[in-house]
């Protein structure tokens, strides 16, 4: 079992263990920002370099289907939370926004997994990642407030579209695409060679954060735990379905499944806190950080690979 775990996931477990013991290994916020900036730029640049090598076809269809995927996942999550979970409307909407959106950290672990297994993926994936961040958040706000005049949509869209992760991913994509593989060689030692090491540091930190949120479950009960564990594989299956529609390769399908199964813990919480303040922010965060994230990186990704291998048309 352990032999099949990616060593970088051990860093997550170290953080989780230290956090449970209440040991103070937290990195300063500045380091967390540095590491995540490097990861976002790297992911973008890798995609961009690949894009510069092989022109993408059918981009418009892929984009449309990705946006549709985001909408579909959010609606399903909302229905389940409101129906089976009997959460209030605002809480259902807020949690649905988190699960309809995506986690870049989970995506990064997926990228590292593919690299380790030697499975290639479409270069366009980081772009789809960006696309998936947005619709769930917008829809979540709509579900919570209706088409209320008081929502400052300009502000909300600004925050999401000009957020750190979207801009760094898109900026990296653009730089990688413009510079191409040769142009990026001089910066490769920082952005590419250190990628997995930085991801390890990031996962150590995520383990510590996840541990801080473990306690939240005593408050939020068994339904939320089930939701946070069952949604990822269910949504991953939907992701694989969409991957098949788009004609993605095995690697692309694994990544889209990973994205679909992941829950946002940065962009969505910030947007919901501003636009839907009545929602209980701890509810979504505990689920996304303390259950879904660990589930995905420990169990989910290899699982989605199996599923994709079985389900994808050959």
């Amino acid at each position: 079992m352990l032999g099949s775990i990616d060593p970088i996931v051990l860093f997550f477990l170290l953080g989780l263990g230290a956090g449970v013991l209440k040991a103070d290994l937290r990195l300063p916020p500045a380091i967390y920002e540095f590491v995540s900036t490097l990861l976002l730029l790297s992911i973008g640049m890798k995609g961009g370099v690949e894009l510069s090598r092989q022109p993408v076809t059918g981009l418009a269809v892929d984009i449309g289907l990705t946006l549709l995927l985001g909408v579909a996942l959010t609606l399903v999550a909302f229905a389940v939370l409101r129906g089976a979970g009997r959460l209030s409307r605002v809480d259902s909407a807020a949690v649905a926004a988190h699960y309809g959106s995506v986690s870049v950290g989970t995506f990064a672990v997926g990228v590292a997994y593919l690299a380790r297994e030697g499975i290639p993926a479409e270069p366009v994936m980081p772009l789809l990642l960006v696309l998936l961040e947005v619709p769930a958040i917008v829809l979540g706000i709509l579900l919570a407030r209706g088409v209320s005049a008081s929502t400052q949509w300009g502000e909300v869209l600004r925050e999401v579209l000009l957020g750190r992760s979207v801009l760094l991913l898109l900026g990296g994509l653009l730089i990688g695409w413009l510079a191409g593989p040769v142009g990026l060689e001089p910066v490769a030692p920082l952005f590419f060679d250190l990628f997995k090491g930085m991801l390890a540091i990031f996962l150590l930190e995520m383990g510590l954060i996840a541990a801080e949120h473990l306690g939240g479950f005593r408050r939020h009960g068994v339904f939320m735990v089930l939701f946070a564990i069952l949604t990822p594989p269910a949504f991953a299956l939907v992701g694989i379905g969409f991957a098949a529609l788009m004609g993605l390769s095995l690697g692309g399908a694994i990544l889209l499944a990973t994205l679909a199964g992941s829950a946002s813990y940065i962009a969505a919480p910030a947007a919901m806190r501003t636009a839907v303040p009545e929602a209980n922010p701890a509810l979504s965060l505990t689920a996304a950080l303390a259950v879904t994230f660990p589930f995905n990186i420990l169990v989910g990704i290899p699982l989605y690979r199996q599923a994709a291998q079985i389900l994808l048309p050959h």
Partner: protein
Amino acid sequence: MTGAAQTQRKLLTVITEANLERDLTRELDALGVGGYTITDARGRGEQEARRSSWGHTGNIRVEVVCDTPLAEHLLGRLRDKYYEHYSIVMWVQDVEVLRPGKFR
């Protein structure tokens, strides 16, 4: 203190969630304060369970020196806007300032 040019003003201190910074400073600007000072802070209160305590975003501590009517107005405005759904704590003190013109 009896220094010649000193005058009474109010110091309003606000402790709230860091992610409100942008919204709060805009509000203060809109309400016409002459200035404010912000420091990063952390703390404990009564609503921890509800907090979006995603580790890295703590509290901010905002100070505004202004005259009494504006302080009253701010207090009311911020209460109406933020008390219900956000973690926010405020207190008011008397201060003496040198250049009262600066503090409306």
